[in-house]
């Protein structure tokens, strides 16, 4: 473990910014919320904050663009792909535990297994992640309910924890180690007690998370109750207010579903990949045939089952890291935690 003071940290970021596009969390004045912003020039923006919790936006857009061209055809090279050079490197500062974990989950789908998505893999490899402890949590945060901590444990290049007038720094990858050793002059050995300061701060956030979520059930134990509630009427009640906007899936860091569509560009054709949402009617509807989830209740339900039942079977983990963004964004006020509570109370009967 190393220590870096704030001035040297800015120096380090400046250096890093020469290698790619630098993104940091900046506080929005009116709301106090953090947004990811690109740093085009130094000094660092005034509202930048290492403290706080996750940004409004997820990090998934760095690895999976909202919309991107994945093929142009016909082509002399056929399916031989040259990508890499034209994809920029991103340095993302203050990735929180829930977002780092979410990217690791999506990696399992997009990169692991029989096929890999080369576009996703390369973009992901080009991300340099400086993760940070949450020093607070939001009302909707529930990482404690999905068995996670509000500080990053793996999946980062560097991880920083605010102490005194600087940060404790841990390395989590070869790239991270290289960066620290190449810039050894910016770091010092942590002072006695700094680690304890960090741990105390962490425990405070955990205590707040527990207090905030004390009325809600342990989400890691939802798979069985959900299965029992598969055909329960509660899904129609839960979905009654849903307006099918798809905001919950767009803002979710583990929602990765996409659609491919083709366009005409002169005498060539372009294949485009675009984010998609299982909450909208047409998502699974088939040409000339039925729709496996025709009712809104089926679709609202699908979001829960995909994350808490299907993906744990196929990919070994719950695909929800408790960031709570879906709760913040839902205009219908659907709160995943409250839905679980309902499911549990039905199960108890």
């Amino acid at each position, binding site marked *: 473990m190393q220590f870096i003071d704030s001035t040297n940290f800015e120096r380090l970021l400046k250096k890093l910014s020469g290698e790619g596009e630098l993104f940091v969390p900046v506080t929005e004045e009116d709301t106090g919320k953090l947004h990811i912003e690109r740093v085009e020039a130094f000094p660092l923006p005034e509202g930048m904050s290492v403290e706080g919790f996750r940004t409004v936006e997820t990090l998934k857009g760095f690895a999976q663009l909202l919309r991107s061209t*994945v*093929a142009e*055809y*016909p*082509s002399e090279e*056929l*399916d*031989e*792909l*040259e*990508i890499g050079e034209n994809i920029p490197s991103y340095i993302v500062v203050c990735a929180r535990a829930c977002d780092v974990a979410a990217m690791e989950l999506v990696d399992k*789908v*997009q990169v692991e*297994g*029989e*096929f*890999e*998505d*080369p576009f996703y893999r390369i973009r992901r490899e080009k991300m340099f992640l400086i993760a940070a402890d949450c020093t607070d949590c939001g009302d909707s945060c529930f990482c404690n309910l999905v068995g996670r901590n509000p500080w990053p444990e793996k999946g980062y290049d560097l991880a920083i924890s605010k102490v005194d007038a600087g940060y404790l720094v841990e390395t989590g990858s070869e790239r991270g180690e290289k960066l620290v050793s190449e810039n050894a002059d910016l770091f010092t050995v942590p002072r006695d007690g700094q680690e304890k300061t960090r741990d105390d701060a962490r425990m405070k956030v955990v205590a707040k998370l527990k207090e905030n979520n004390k009325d809600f059930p342990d989400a890691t134990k939802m798979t069985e109750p959900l299965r029992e509630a*598969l*055909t329960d009427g509660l899904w129609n009640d839960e979905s009654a207010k849903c307006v099918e906007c798809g905001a919950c899936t767009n803002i979710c860091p583990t929602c*990765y*579903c*996409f*659609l*491919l*569509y*083709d*366009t*005409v560009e002169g005498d060539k*054709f372009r*294949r485009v*990949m675009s984010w*998609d949402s*299982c909450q909208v009617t047409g*998502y*699974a*509807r*088939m*040409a*000339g*045939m*039925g*729709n*496996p*989830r*025709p009712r809104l209740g*089926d679709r609202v339900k699908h979001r829960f089952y*995909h994350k808490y*039942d*299907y*993906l744990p*079977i*196929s990919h070994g983990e719950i695909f929800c890291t408790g960031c709570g963004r879906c709760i913040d964004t839902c205009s219908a006020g659907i709160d995943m935690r409250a839905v679980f509570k309902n499911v549990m109370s039905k199960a108890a009967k």
Partner: protein
Amino acid sequence: MKNPYYPIDTVVEDVITETPTIKTFVLKPVRPIQFKAGQFMQLTVPGVGEAPFTPSSDPSITERMEITILKTGKVTDALHELGPGAKVGLRGPFGKGYPLDKLVGKDVLVVGGGVGLAPMRALLYGLFADPSKYKKIVIKFGAREPAELSFRRQFDEWRALADNISLQTTIDVPHPDWTGHVGLVTTVLETEHLEGIDIVDSYALSCGPEIMLKFVTLKLLEIGYKPPQIYLSMNRKMSCGMGKCGRCNVGHYYLCVDGPDMCYDKIKHVPNVFG
């Protein structure tokens, strides 16, 4: 690096009109494509998009591939407009294919309806490669009317291949040109039509419209098949073909990876399983 989203350049060599709404396209991709019976391809109509189809041709032939297509939506409408020489694209194969190994030494009941006969033809080619490996091969094909029975020109040839092969066809409603059996395909699954199949030592495989799959499944269960002995070619919307885009799930399975043929035992608990 290979781009899994690139549709391999392919020429339409020939178009065979099977029925008023079904055509078979003979496709020649720039490089051979190896597939197993029951695996599917994503077929691109340039600028229009992709749709999934299971080849209807003999899997041992890799230079050419036949895909039999019902006119049913945006991509298939555009396909039906195409003639020889047209350029299309292919990605794949995707999915698992039929469980041919499991069928060895068993009675095999093949039930196809409408355009569902198409993927079943690839299965039949697979079985016909050595019919002696199976006990009986009992084939039941149904369609709404005689004109909708694809591959009729081949039926007699198939029947003649080996003694253990039988093929019975049926149409839904009486028709002046038809002297064969009349009734839904489920009616030829009554015991007297089953050629003495030993149901406990048999597998049934079916492909067709969802509503037909549903009633075939119910019938099979009624005559004594157990869910693990039933394989169904399921339909879901597909996009990536690689288990990544998320849309083709049936319960926790992705049809594009785990199917499209699924053992009924694995999916019977899924609500709306038949769409």
